[in-house]
């Protein structure tokens, strides 16, 4: 609303009232559409932080996955879904773009087993296998990242400014080929969170 008012104020002197109303209507439609989409499906990073464990800076993250009906339907029809959770540690440089010190990715593969009616979760980085009877349990499991080691804490000098980032997205490239063209153009399949950034403190 603040933004809308700002826009209204900015354009008050130079545009007609009709134009301002049009802009307002368009912005409201845009915001409603975004919120409705976010309500049905999407990935949100609820919290993310870091902790030093045994001289390693490790990250924790709580991620909320809201899969749409299409995603759930596909999973139950035997189509595996893969999620990439990307972590990055960056060093801030005043007159240059930030330097990426390290980047690591955790990939979870979700699949449904009709025989046992279970959902299988495979952490492709190390092959860890977990199975759950409910999809919500699966999403809760892959939404909790605990103490994922990132970088030696000695590298993070006290006088430097460091940031950590996390981002999650559904791997469309891992979907079956016939589904991919649709997935690229469908918002329901383009599940992705924005980069969540936090400053690393001593």
């Amino acid at each position, binding site marked *: 609303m603040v933004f809308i008012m700002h826009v209204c104020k900015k354009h008050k002197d130079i545009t007609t009232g009709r134009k301002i109303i049009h802009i307002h209507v368009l912005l409201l439609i845009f915001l409603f559409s975004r919120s409705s989409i976010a309500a049905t499906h999407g990935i949100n990073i609820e919290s993310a932080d870091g902790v030093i464990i045994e001289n390693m800076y490790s990250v924790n993250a709580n991620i909320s996955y809201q899969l749409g009906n299409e995603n759930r339907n596909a999973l139950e029809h035997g189509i595996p879904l893969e999620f990439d959770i990307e972590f990055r540690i960056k060093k801030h440089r005043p007159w240059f773009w930030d330097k990426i010190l390290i980047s690591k990715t955790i990939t979870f593969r979700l699949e449904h087993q009709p025989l*046992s009616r279970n959902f299988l979760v495979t952490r492709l980085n190390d092959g860890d296998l977990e199975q759950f009877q409910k999809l919500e349990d699966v999403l809760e499991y892959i939404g909790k990242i605990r103490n994922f080691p990132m970088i030696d804490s000695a590298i993070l000098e006290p006088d430097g400014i460091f940031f950590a980032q996390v981002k999650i997205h559904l791997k469309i490239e891992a979907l079956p080929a*016939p589904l991919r063209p649709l997935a690229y153009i469908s918002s329901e399949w383009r599940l992705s969170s924005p980069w969540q950034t936090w400053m690393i403190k001593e």
Partner: protein
Amino acid sequence: MRKSGQLIFRTGVVLFFLMLSSLLMMSNALQDSSHFSDFYLGLLIFNTLGLLVLVVLITLNLKRLIKQLRNRIPGAKMTIRMVAMFTVLSVTPVLVVYYFSLDFLIRGIDNWFDLRVEQALNDSLDLSRQSLDTRMRDLLRRTKQMAEELSDITDATIPFEIDDMRMKSGAKELTLLTRQGTIISSSADDPFHLVPDRPSETILLQLQQGNNYTALDTIRNAGLHIRVVVNVPTFSMESEARIIQALYPVSERINQLAESVQDAFIKYKELSYLREQLKKSFVIILTLVLLFSIFSTVWAAFYTARRLVEPVSNLVKGTQEVAQGNYTTQIPVPGNDELGFLVASFNEMTRKIAQAQDAVSRSRHEAETQQAYLEAVLETLSSGVLVLDQDNKVRTYNSCAGQILGIPIASHIGHSIEDIAEEYLSFKQFKEGLELQLSSTHNNWREQIAITNSSGRIILMCSGTTLPGTHNMQQGHVIVIDDITALIQGQRNAAWSEVARRLAHEIKNPLTPIQLATERLRHKYLQGMRADDTDTFDRLTNTIIQQVEAMKDMVNSFTDFSSTPEINLQMTDINDLLKEVIDLYANLNSNAEIITRLSDNIPLMAADKGRLRQVFNNLLKNAFDACDRCKVFRLEISSDSMTENNQKFVEIKIKDSGTGITEDIMDRMFDPYATTKTKGTGLGLAIVKKIVEEHKGLVMLVNNSPGDGACAIVRLPVNELNDQKSENCAVNRKAI
């Protein structure tokens, strides 16, 4: 242009094969996701871009073709026809195949998903589940028994008992845990399996709620297992609640069968879910293949049509070049086929035409050389040559003919002699003199005719020859014209000189004895005669003496005429000379009206003053004699300077008001003894002509308007002293 065309063609061919491979890879990716699956989208984009490139190529070709059509480039229409024909012939069957393929494909995909197959797969899965459920129930019961047995055993003694219990139960792994998931003891059939499989938090939560857990689980690197987790009953409040987890292996056969059923079910469900997407993907690929085929065909049609039409358009261009006179046109031969033979024949034809053209050109050049040679020869002739065709039109001439006839004959080429005669009097006289000969059938003839041109009256000797014609038809005449005026005049002068010399010799000699004898007679007999005889004698002897004197004068005049004394040139002012002579005659007749118009621009010229004085003296004397008995005595004397053919002349005219010259003596006016006067020797004009010619000049006598006297015209060239002398020397040498 040709190189860039080759480059575009090669690029197109490479693109064709790349797109073909790409489409094959896409098809493969759809059928089996393990192959090229990762490149599916890239291949789709590549093929779409490839199609766009083909569209651009076709558009460029079409644009070029339309431009050629507008510019009426040969072969453009034929190219359009061929492209249209190729396109229709190739696209029609492709479209038919596309339609039926699409229909069969969609029907085929729908046929994959038969309800009976789906039911069978569901039944198979249920059967597998039922089978495993029975086994799971049995294992749950067995695990519960073990849990009851374990309830009496303390944690300290468990390690001694658990192996035995595991072996008895047939479990692969048996683990005793607290309800929080802490492992108390474990036993496994694999001694190297050190870390027991821990139940998940969800299972523990389920157990904490008092429920048991029995499920078919997939164990990492071990396949399907039946996991049974049950609570161990506790009888005392102090002891911690425990749970026992048993992992029972599924037999290898059942494992395989279950996996097989599950895989088939998953594959079927996946395909069922992707049915619409598969259809769309196949339609996309098939459409891409269709568009690829159509665009490739159209582009190939352009290329092929252009290749086929090129020799034809080259032939058209070549024909146009030949029509414009470029006979050196050669067209590249396309091959050994009929078209190649045609092009080779065209090249041979143009080569022969070029050779013939060269031969014609050479012949024309030779003819022109011959004509130039003939003209040069004709120009060097001192005789005039005139060639008439059968219609008496002037065909050929030389400049001498024009000079003799006194007409600009060059501007009358192709004109008939009748037309020219109407324009020029001299040519009219010439034509009238030759009319008889030209109409006669004689092949060779000679005719002497007299004409009057700007130089006066001249005598021409014309020799004619009939040109050979075909079919006995006369094709024209060659007339050779010689000006024989000077020759005749020379002959006459020579004859008269001989007469004068003989007269001087034969008459002058006896005259002196006659005169002397007469004088002696007078001296001897005059004084002794009677008075009446004396008068008669005196008169008679005086008459004899006077006549002898007169005869002596006449003979002296003849002597002067026949002799050629050396000319004495000096720079002379003609006006002064004229004034000097006019003064002599001014007081001769008081009735005479003498009008003098002497130009101030008369230059000095090399001349013999004495002889020119004699010329003017004779002419003025003639004029005075002519006007002697006239009522009006008017004499006009004029001098003028003029330039003709880059030669300066001084023209002197002496016009009298006498009776003029009769036509019968006009021809002989400058001959000796040609006179109408009763007195005189008749040599005055002959001497005038002789002196004027010695000065390279011209003298004419023409009548004024009828009854208005005559006019003597003397035209003298203006020469420097040296020039005149050298010319006279040359004339003298030539005469010698």
